[in-house]
């Protein structure tokens, strides 16, 4: 029930799944910045999985009362914008230098039909490699491996020293993520073609096979007893040196920090192995979509919020809290509030954009719409947990799965 008349103070109703912890705090900071612009911030988080949030969104759309803004990312923005009317943000965006300072691929996702209807909020580097300092010390290594060969060699040493080289929780999305990291590290182009464009030839090509082979190698280095667990469950053992490496999005550094572990002392952080010679950035970007409304107060709120979301100030505040990196590439991360890991990722992103090797994550729903992602993920997760499936067989299944959903 809106008690205020139409011309009353601007306000914004927003739903997201970010309710607690760092994410919740970041959203609160967002809210504070919006409030300072005179907008009443009404955040209604739907905690839990993304699907739960989307169910809520769907129910609200069905009810004819979508929120003014909601969390949404990747190709889903396009899919959802087809079932509910969205707000055109072109004027607001064009009034700034925003578009010039973000990745073109990313921009495309947020204006699926040419008009800006959504905005990215933050970026995570998915291809981040965390190494246990203790494990590294034990085998006498000081540097993170740069290529898959280096990685394999180091991992073999660790295995020989009684260390489980790879810490892996083994939930579906993480299994898919490990595949995308291997493929991106073998050939970012092949990744773009095979995964992002679902090109059949690329899918059946040698790079994908090589990725599967490397992934099979990785699974042999995973503890057979890790499955169905949140990745964070194994952090203590990783830090103790029982495990060697963890490949996980940049958010893991925030968790480690909260657990009182120090970068450089307890762990090392950097990009995952990369054979291409040029920087690769596997991107997971959270975004916010703005739904159409007839209420003037909400419309005003949306506009003000979009302006905040595009600001440099927001970019810094939001990412510092979350451990992510700004969407804008023109931000200096020298602040003490950032960690080395973030700075490294930001540098990585800029380089990757230049080299045209900034790609979208499959495991995190950035590369494809949900049905496609899920179909591919089913194949990948089964491959990770079933060593009877050969890389060749898996490649065929993956290509076939792509066939059915293309």
């Amino acid at each position, binding site marked *: 029930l809106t008690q205020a008349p139409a011309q009353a103070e601007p306000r914004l109703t927003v739903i997201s*799944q970010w*309710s*607690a*912890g*760092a*994410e*919740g*705090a970041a*959203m*609160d900071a967002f*809210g504070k910045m919006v409030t300072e612009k005179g907008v009443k911030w*009404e*955040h*209604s*988080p*739907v*905690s*839990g*999985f993304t699907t*739960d949030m989307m*169910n*809520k969104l*769907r*129910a*609200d759309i*069905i*009810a*004819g*009362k979508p929120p003014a803004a909601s969390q949404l990312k990747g190709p889903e923005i396009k899919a959802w914008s087809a079932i509910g009317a969205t707000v055109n943000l072109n004027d607001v965006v064009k009034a700034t230098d925003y578009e010039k300072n973000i990745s073109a691929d990313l921009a495309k996702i947020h204006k699926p039909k040419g008009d800006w209807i959504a905005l990215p909020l933050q970026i*995570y580097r998915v291809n981040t490699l965390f190494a246990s300092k203790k494990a590294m010390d034990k085998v006498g290594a000081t540097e993170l491996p740069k290529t898959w060969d280096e990685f394999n060699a180091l991992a073999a040493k660790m295995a020989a020293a009684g260390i489980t080289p790879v810490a892996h929780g083994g939930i579906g*999305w993480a299994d898919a993520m490990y595949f995308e990291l291997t493929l991106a590290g073998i050939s970012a182009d092949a990744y773009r073609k095979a995964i992002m464009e679902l090109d059949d030839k690329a899918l059946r090509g040698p790079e994908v096979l090589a990725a599967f082979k490397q992934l099979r190698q990785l699974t042999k280095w995973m503890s057979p007893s890790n499955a169905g667990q*949140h990745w*964070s*469950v194994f*952090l*203590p053992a990783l*830090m103790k040196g029982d495990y060697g490496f963890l490949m996980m*999005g940049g*958010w893991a550094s*925030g*968790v480690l920090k*909260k*657990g*009182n572990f120090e970068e450089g002392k307890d762990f090392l952080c950097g990009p995952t192995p990369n054979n291409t010679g040029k920087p690769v950035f596997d991107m997971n970007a959270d975004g916010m979509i703005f739904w159409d409304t007839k209420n003037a107060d909400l419309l005003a709120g949306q506009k003000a919020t979009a302006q905040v979301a595009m600001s440099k100030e927001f970019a810094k505040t939001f990412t510092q809290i*979350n451990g992510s990196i700004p969407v804008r590439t023109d931000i200096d991360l020298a602040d003490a509030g950032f960690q080395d890991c973030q700075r490294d990722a930001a540098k990585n992103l800029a380089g990757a954009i230049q080299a045209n090797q900034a790609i979208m994550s499959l495991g*995190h729903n950035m590369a494809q719409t949900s049905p496609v992602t899920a179909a591919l993920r089913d194949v990948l997760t089964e491959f990770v947990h079933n060593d009877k499936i050969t890389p060749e067989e898996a490649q065929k299944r993956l290509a076939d799965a792509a066939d059915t959903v293309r």
Partner: protein
Amino acid sequence: MVEARSLSARGGRILLYAILIAFAAFYLTPLIVVILNSFRSFQEITQTSVLGFPKEFRLDNWVQAWGSYCIAGICSGISPYMWNSLLIAVPATLISTLLGAMNGYLLSLWRFRGAGLIFGIITFGVFLPAQMKLVPWAITLRDLGLSNTLAGLVLIHVVQGMSFTTLFCRNYYVNVPQDLIKAAKVDGAGFLQIFWRIILPLSPPILIVTVIWQFTGIWNEFLYGITFSEGSARPVTAALMALSANIAQAREYGIESASVLIAALPTLLVYLFGGKYFVRGLTAGAVK
């Protein structure tokens, strides 16, 4: 000879108790794990394991979980959400029980053609998976103008709950002698009066069973709770989800454990104090 017999009997008793206690341990272990975790800090759990004995018993988790943990910028812990859950669960439980009793009464004591079929259909309702009903409910709530209201959630739980309550109550009422209805008719009582004055006072055993069943189910439900509520009006299960199921964060197992225990307290108490009546009610003919 008598000696030997009593010895073996004693051996049997010891074995009996050993088995019973072993199972008690099996049932209690998870609870104990959660209780222990609720006294451990995030750092402690992160640095050791989710299973372990607390280095020191800290009450922070409980304090935070109850009153200061931040969910969506509101740092009041889960306590306000407990109240929401009560506002949903209590009316939904009572109404669905009452309506189920009414249905059971109608279907068992006012036998009419098709009563069996109607009962069969209503009973089939208990098998419908929740996921399947999510979108139809969204549409229904929209049409009724109850989207994102507590009343909407109550309605959902009442209608869905009727399947179970009708099942339980009807099976209980078929054992009520038809003569009672006849006597009341001769006395001049009408349909509702017979139900209210004669049948309902007979029903506490089965009502306790349905109330416990419904209350537990509704209290623990989260899919509808998340989807059909909004803002600070969410049930406690939705608030609990804020503590779990994130990809980018390590779970706050300590606070989560304390919250789970606090959130489960009403249902646990219901079983603790109602359990006896639960079994008694079942004995009285709930099951057939």
